[in-house]
C-alpha cells in the first residue's frame, strides 16, 4: 500500500495528513478528516453532492484523488461560514426555503459560492448552468435558483 504525508491548505489552515494513493478525495475528506458535510451520493461525478473547491474551482471530490491536493487549497462546506456566521448564500438558502432533506445542499452551496466568486451578477441561465451538476431530489430547483439570485443581489448591495 502506498502511504504518504501530504501538505495542503484546508479551509484556510495549513494542514498535514496521511493518505493512501488509492484514496478518493471524497473518502479522505469524510473518513480521514472527519468532515462529513461533504456528501457521498453517486461516486461517479453525476450528482454533485460531493462538490468542494480546489483552488477556488468547484469539483466533484469523488472524481479526484486525495494525492492531487498536495500543495493546493481545499475548501469544504465547513469552511464557508466565517467566525460562526453563515455566509450570505447559506442564509438565503434558509430564507428562501431552498432545501428540504438537505442532502444536496452542501454541494449546491459550494457550486453557488464558486459561481458568485467569478460572476457576481449571474443571469438565471448562468445560475442554472452553475448547478447543472448538482441533483436535488426534493426541492425542485426553482427555490434554489431563486436563493442564489437573491444571494448575488445581497452581496452586490453590500459591496
Amino acid at each position, binding site marked *: 500500500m502506498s502511504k504518504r504525508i501530504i501538505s495542503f491548505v484546508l479551509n484556510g489552515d495549513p494542514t498535514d495528513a496521511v493518505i493512501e494513493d488509492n484514496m478518493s478525495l471524497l473518502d479522505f475528506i469524510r473518513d480521514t478528516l472527519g468532515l462529513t458535510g461533504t456528501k457521498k451520493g453517486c461516486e461517479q461525478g453525476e450528482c454533485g453532492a460531493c462538490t468542494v473547491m480546489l483552488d477556488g474551482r468547484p469539483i*466533484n471530490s469523488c*472524481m479526484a484523488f486525495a494525492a492531487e491536493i498536495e500543495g493546493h487549497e481545499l475548501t469544504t462546506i465547513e469552511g464557508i461560514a466565517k467566525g460562526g456566521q453563515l455566509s450570505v448564500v447559506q442564509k438565503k438558502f434558509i430564507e428562501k426555503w431552498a432545501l428540504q432533506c438537505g442532502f444536496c445542499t452542501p454541494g449546491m452551496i459550494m457550486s453557488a459560492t464558486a459561481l458568485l466568486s467569478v460572476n457576481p451578477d449571474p443571469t438565471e441561465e448562468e445560475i442554472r448552468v452553475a*448547478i447543472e451538476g448538482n441533483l436535488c431530489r426534493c426541492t425542485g430547483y426553482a427555490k434554489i435558483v431563486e436563493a442564489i439570485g437573491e444571494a448575488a443581489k445581497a452581496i452586490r448591495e453590500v459591496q
Partner: protein
Amino acid sequence: MILPEFKYLAPGSAEEAIGLLVQYGEKAKLMAGGTDLINYMKDGILAPEVIIGLKEIKGMDQIVYDEEKGLTIGALTKLIDIERSDVVKENYPALAEAVHLIASTQIRNKGTLTGNVCNASPSADSVSALFVYGASLTVKGPEGERVIPIGDFYQGFKKLALKPGEMVISITLPPVKENEKAAYLAHTVRKAMDLAIVGVAAKITLDENGVCTDAKIALGAVAISCVRTPQAESVLIGRKITPEIAEIAGREAMKDCKPISDVRASAEYRHDMVRVFTRRAVLAAADRF
C-alpha cells in the same frame, strides 16, 4: 467505493512524465483531469499500477491566440477556461459551444480538452468541432516532438496514433478567415451530464457572392470515432446555402455513418437525426455570416 491499488506520481515537467511513461510502459496511465479515468477505475475497466498525474506540470494550461498561427490550447487547460475564453468565443464559437455541452460545471473545472480527445469517446462533443477547424495535436515522446492532424489521430475504436512514451502537449487550431463560419449542435435529452445521441459540427466558407467554396462537416456518436462526411460536404460546395440544400446535405450525411443502437437511441433514430442535425448545423453556421 474502493479504488484498485496504484502508485500516484506527479512529475514536474513533460520530459519527466515521458521518462516515467517509458519506464512503466503499459502499466502506467497518464492523467490530466482524471474525470474519465477515475470512473473507468471504479468500474473495473482499467487498473493501472501507476498513475502519472500531469497537473503539477507548469505552463501547460495556457490558451494562446495569434492571428497568423491560430489558437494553441495547452494539454492541461481546463474545459471551463476554454468555453469562457473571449478569443475562443469570438474566433472558434463551435469549439466553445461543444465544450460547454460536456458533462457539468464541476467536471469542466477539472477535465481538459486533451483528456477529452485522448479518451476517444465516439460521442465526445469537442472532437467534431476540432475536426472542422482542422486542428492538430502536438505530441512529445522520447524521440522528440511531432504534429498529428486530428483526422489521423483515431485509428479505430479508442485506438490513438500515439507511440509508446508519447503524450499530447497541446492542440492547435489554424486561424479562421473572415469568410469561414462554424457551428456545433448536439442532440441530447438534457443539457447536463448527458452524452450526445448525435453531434454535428459544420464549417462553411462562402465567397463574395455567397457561394460555398469549402465545407467541413463532422459527425459525433454515429461511428467508432468522430467522422467527416465527404458526401454532405460536396453537396454544399459550389452552391448557395439554403434550407433545401442543407436538407440534401443532411440526407447525404446519413450515408457516411454507421450508428449503433444503445440505451440512448436506436440506430434508425440516430440515422435520421444525422439528417436533421446536419441540416441545422449547416444553417446555424450560415447564419453567422
